[in-house]
């Protein structure tokens, strides 16, 4: 009897957790397909429409350009941060160089810095350089957020790769750079891919910098959400449609790396 309760209790709990996790997401998805009139009712009995998506992609909302901005900013940030971070992570992981601990601590400690403290100087610098409301500005600030984190994450992955294969390659006649190219990169590829996706997610969702550094041309999706607050009130059905656009690509990526997720996160942290 007790066992029976425990068994079903555990399953009921799991269902409850799933509902808590999925409900807000599901409700947003439903609302995105509702007519404005239905959005304000709680009825599940509505005629689905894609009108909201058509609306957000046309004037004056122009979600298309925001999608483009988000893709370019997140893509460029990953393209710059991940290669640089991978090289540094390899060096931190494999060489016993002087000052290594200090340098690594320096990198890590930048993670403790609240973003707002560097937001002010960036705003001032970009203002005088005429870079406000450009994608370049957003890429630069996102590098600040993402680079130390990616170094830490990839180092965790490289640490977990045994050194045997690298040493074997060196003895087989490969130079260190050749070892990195032929052995380390292919072996660390899943970790580097996971870190890249992670980095993409962080940049894609970044809000504070984009809120202040973009106005019209470089607006990214999360900031775009705010523009659906109008004098006529919050346009929930449009917000939800935009929300779907923000989440779908990220959800797909997140589910792709789900398996590697724990490992990457804890490798550096727990050891």
């Amino acid at each position, binding site marked *: 009897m007790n066992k029976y309760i425990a068994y079903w209790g555990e399953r009921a709990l799991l269902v409850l957790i799933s509902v808590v996790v999925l409900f807000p997401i599901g409700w947003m998805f439903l609302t995105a397909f509702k007519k404005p009139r239905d959005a304000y009712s709680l009825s599940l009995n509505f005629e689905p429409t894609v009108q909201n998506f058509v609306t957000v992609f046309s004037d004056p909302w122009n979600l298309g350009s925001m999608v483009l901005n988000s893709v370019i900013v997140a893509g460029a940030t990953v393209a710059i941060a991940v290669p640089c971070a991978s090289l540094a992570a390899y060096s931190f992981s494999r060489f016993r160089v002087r000052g290594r601990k200090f340098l690594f601590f320096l990198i890590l400690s930048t993670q403790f810095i609240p973003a707002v403290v560097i937001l002010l100087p960036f705003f001032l610098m970009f203002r005088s350089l005429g870079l406000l409301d450009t994608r370049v500005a957003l890429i630069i600030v996102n590098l600040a957020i993402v680079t130390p984190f990616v170094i830490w994450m990839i180092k965790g992955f490289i640490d977990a790769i*045994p050194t*045997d*294969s690298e*040493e*074997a*390659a*060196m*003895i*087989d*006649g*490969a*130079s*260190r750079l*050749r070892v990195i190219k*032929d*052995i380390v990169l*292919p*072996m660390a*590829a899943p970790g580097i891919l996971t870190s890249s996706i992670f980095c993409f997610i962080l940049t894609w969702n970044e809000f504070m910098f984009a809120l202040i550094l973009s106005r019209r041309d470089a607006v990214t999706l999360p900031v775009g959400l705010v523009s659906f607050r109008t004098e006529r009130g919050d346009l929930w059905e449009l917000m939800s449609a935009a929300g779907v656009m923000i989440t779908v690509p990220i959800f797909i990526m997140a589910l792709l790396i789900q398996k590697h997720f724990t490992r990457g996160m804890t490798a550096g942290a727990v050891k």
Partner: protein
Amino acid sequence: MAEVRLVDIEKKYGSFLAVPQQSLTIEDGEFLVLLGPSGCGKTTTMRMIAGLEDITAGDIQIAGERVNDKPPKDRDIAMVFQNYGLYPHMTVRQNIEYPLKLRKVNKAERARRVQDTADKVELGTLLDRRPSELSGGQRQRVALARAIVRTPKIFLMDEPLSNLDAKLRVTMRAELKHLHHELGVTTVYVTHDQMEAMTLADRVAVMREGRIVQLDTPKRIYSDPADLFVAGFIGSPSMNLIDGAVQDGRFIAEGMDLPVSLPDRDEVVFGIRPEDLELADGDTPIKGRLYALELTGESTLVTMRAGKTSVCARGHADFEAPINAPCHLAPKTGARFYLFDRATGQRLDG
């Protein structure tokens, strides 16, 4: 093919002295085994030869050339790792081919040599598999093939058999021995398994706490151990080592009374191999009660106890007796025994 000379080499990690200053010469074509318990510095010594660890002091010469500052790739060595160190993202063929590729050997030649080598280690049919699709023994062969596909000056092998199961280890051991005979390349082999050392080596260097305590042929290491440590480390089952004292030309311990040629002293360890003891009747120099019988197949290991003294003898496979029965042991005629100082481990006889 080449001779390897380690001249006054030393290795420190910070203030920790891993390998104290010492020298070692490995003859051209020799199969030398570095033997010792884990943490004794044998792997460190091999890695210094490979160039994977810097040396703190001294010189390493390969074929008469000083290689201290040469990176591993320029030392012309091949190495087999304990965990094989295969390239998991490459096929067996690519794994074996990699050292040739790095040496810019042309494609046709590469293909031919890979096939030859693979056939030699019986991998010919597995060339397109990935390491993850192979068994432990097959992986071991890939590592071996990768080492012998080019003809290096020296082979280094770091516990290459330790990840295999017992049966496979014996087969691979024979293959390694045959391969060395065939190729005649100077080989340095690290192991903690004294059986591997005895069967494979031309010479064995027994190491302890970073130091080579005895460097000799397997035969002499077995029959003439330099000290208590080597005596206890070599042989299976290991040598009986009995604490006692010498009084009036006799070694005395609980259950033991045996003539020896040594002046009187306390704190003596008496050593005799189980093979050199036999079961006897009547008034033998070693007496006690039967403690355990272990049939190994070709013989029975008889363990006898008297107080603190425990002695093991190799007896006939048919031997049977009830546990706790009185047990009498005597050295066989011509048996060797050894006397050591208990504190220092030094040999006191011979």
